[in-house]
């Protein structure tokens, strides 16, 4: 029985001669290209005409792709075409997206710039609202602020100061060049008039004069 079936198989093989190896290579190439998953030899055999030898075709194909932009790779017990590792950088596309800083971030930044070195608690006091961790992290990540000296008060809180990157971005020579409240008012940026008698003091105190001595330590 088994002999007979073997005979029939033999006959089939000779009847339907396998395509030339070059053709087989093309087939393997197309299948590997179009498949979403790596393809097993067995599957290649099933899909290709009877008598094909995908394993051999793969050897040729692999050789053909040596040094090319893509390679024929064995992934587990299956085969796939993959980008050459040295060209991985092409698979990234850098898109630069410009976004406006959130109001919380810009306010926090402004306070740090005008009051540096300033602790988080002080920022919160000035803004009158808690400063989220994320806001500080964002500004640190942007390298517009950095940690300053620890304050010599109980708890030794860290302070924040603005960086050279900040100055560069805003085209400032130093944080001292930040316009004071008086300038802001003169520029019409303070649209609401403060209580008479309170502003002049504030201005003097709040100006960038105070606290900025530590700014350009390093």
């Amino acid at each position: 029985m088994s002999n007979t079936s073997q005979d029939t198989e033999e006959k089939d093989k000779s009847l339907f001669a396998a395509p030339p190896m070059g053709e087989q290579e093309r087939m393997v190439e197309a299948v590997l290209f179009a498949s979403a998953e790596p393809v097993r030899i067995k599957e290649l055999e099933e899909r290709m005409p009877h008598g094909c030898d995908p394993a051999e075709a793969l050897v040729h194909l692999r050789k053909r792709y040596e040094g090319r932009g893509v390679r024929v790779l064995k992934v587990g017990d299956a085969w796939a075409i993959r980008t050459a590792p040295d060209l991985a950088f092409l698979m990234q596309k850098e898109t630069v997206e410009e976004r406006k800083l959130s109001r919380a971030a810009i306010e926090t930044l402004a306070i740090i710039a005008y009051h540096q070195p300033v602790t988080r608690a002080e920022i919160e006091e000035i803004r009158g609202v808690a400063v989220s961790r994320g806001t500080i992290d964002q500004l640190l990540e942007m390298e517009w602020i950095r940690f300053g000296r620890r304050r010599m008060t109980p708890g030794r809180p860290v302070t924040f100061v603005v960086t050279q990157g900040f100055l560069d971005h805003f085209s400032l020579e130093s944080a001292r060049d930040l316009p004071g409240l008086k300038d802001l008012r003169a520029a019409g940026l303070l649209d609401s008039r403060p209580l008479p008698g309170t502003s002049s003091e504030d201005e003097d105190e709040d100006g960038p004069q105070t606290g900025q001595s530590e700014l350009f330590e390093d």
Partner: protein
Amino acid sequence: MAEPENLFQMQSVADRLQAEALIVDVDGFEGPLDLLLNLSRTQKVDLRKISVLQLAEQYLKFVDQAKALRIELAADYLVMAAWLAFLKSRLLLPPDPTADGPSAEEMAAHLAFQLERLQAMREAAAQLMARDRLGRDTFARGVSEEVARLRKVTYTASLMELMQAYARIRTRDEFRPYAFDRTNVFTMEEALERIRGLIGFAGDWSDLTGFLPDGWGTDPKRRRSATAATFAASLEMAKQGQIEIRQSDTFQPISIRKKT
């Protein structure tokens, strides 16, 4: 005997079949132009050499048959019928030299052009659909390597925005105590009223702090405001000659009394 009857019956069957074919087909036609194109096939000539007159007659016959069979024909079939009837009469009559507009021949040529164009588009569509089609004959990459989009977000802010933000905070800061502390502010007007009301009852010299409103002496904020207002009010009243003020020494208690 039987023959003519038979023949008649045959004819009637053929007629009926034809009529049924019409019923079926009227749905299948994509408008009058499609119908005309189908009718034109019976002429078995190049569309460029088609007899528009013959075609018009065929169409009108079709419409008549449809009417006879009470097939509801869409309005555009009837519009086409009316136009073809007009064209037919124009083609049959000798041209009217005074008539405006296109000649019957021009109109016929245009219809032939439309038919030829529609036919050409159909053939083009067939050729197009017979091309190698993606997903049927050709295949795209099965696994597309995602291009990692390194989204680099850069945040921007202008100096103006920074300054505006700061200005916003500062102005808010200055206004907040004012608005909020209204309850803790004792105004000079209130102080004046209070002193005026009380001074008559006070005998001789009495300490200015005694004129502070009830309950304003404990909270430092309130005490400060009330003291300041009361002191200012006392100065005002002294200026107006309503009271006298005395203070034995710097930082010593201030006393007032009604001027007599």
